[in-house]
């Protein structure tokens, strides 16, 4: 097993960037869970808010995708 220190740094950095995916998972779960909690209290208003739900999910998820992109860049582009 040989390799230089820069490769090691790349792998460690990519692994650390993957933590961001977990953080995005927390965010997405929070959005969806709160939507469901609200929707069960007032089901008649739920249908009109699904668009807002998807916008919220998209914003939460985008940051996780950024972390994934950083990991990919570290692994393959640097």
């Amino acid at each position, binding site marked *: 097993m040989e390799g230089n220190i820069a490769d090691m740094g790349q792998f460690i950095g990519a692994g650390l960037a993957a933590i961001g995916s977990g953080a995005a998972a927390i965010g997405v779960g929070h959005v969806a869970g709160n939507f469901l909690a609200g929707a069960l209290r007032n089901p008649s208003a739920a249908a009109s808010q699904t*668009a807002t739900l*998807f*916008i919220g*999910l*998209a*914003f939460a*998820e*985008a940051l996780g*995708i*950024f972390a*994934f*992109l950083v990991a990919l860049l570290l692994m*393959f582009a640097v």
Partner: protein
Amino acid sequence: MEEEAHAPAEGGLTFHPLDQFEVTPLFGDGPVHFFTITNATMWMAIAVLAIFALFVLGTSRRSLVPGRVQSTAEILYSFIYKMVEDVTGHDGVRYFPYILTLFLFILFVNYLGLVPTSFTPTSHIAVTAVLGFGVFIAVTVLGFVKNGAAFLGLFWMKDAPLVLRPIIAVIEVISYFVRPVSHSIRLAGNIMAGHAVIKVFAGFAAIALISPVSIVAIALIYGLEVLVAGIQAYVFTILTCVYLKDALHPGH
């Protein structure tokens, strides 16, 4: 990296999960110029032809009781029409053709990319950046044409305390210019990540011990990807509507 290339089939992956995103010319092996016909342009052309077939040929008979093809086209049309009307209001309906075009293109490219051995152009940031920055430029120009300098009121919150307004303005300007980046990377990242995960599990399927598990996992992830392909097209479209609403009514 040297050892990995010569690794036996049962260790490591037999192919690289990101090989599927390689853009190659269809004819010959020459370098890719901007006019070269590649697999990416071919699949985009197939998507456009499929949309044409669905919407022009499918609705050509215009029967009062729609058949399967015609009702599919009608459902897609009225779904996006309702979305544009709900999010942007009545004056946003003028821009409905652009939004329907974006939605159909992304949806069809995403779904055609799920056909095994096909290629997904939306997994490339180069493709989605054109769509995302196109929306950004169109919306910014439209905002200034419609509202003039009042469009800058989007960054200057009237209902915030005066002390905080400059700070909020800086944050709003930054978030406005990050919009096209996140808009395009969200789509490309989701599609690319999904396809890469499928290929990673396909690599595990070469290992005899865990191949049944990984084949079941591929089937499940594929189902998830069908969902993601539709949702990402929807999300891209609805965010376009939201940005359009900001351009038409910057005060709200």
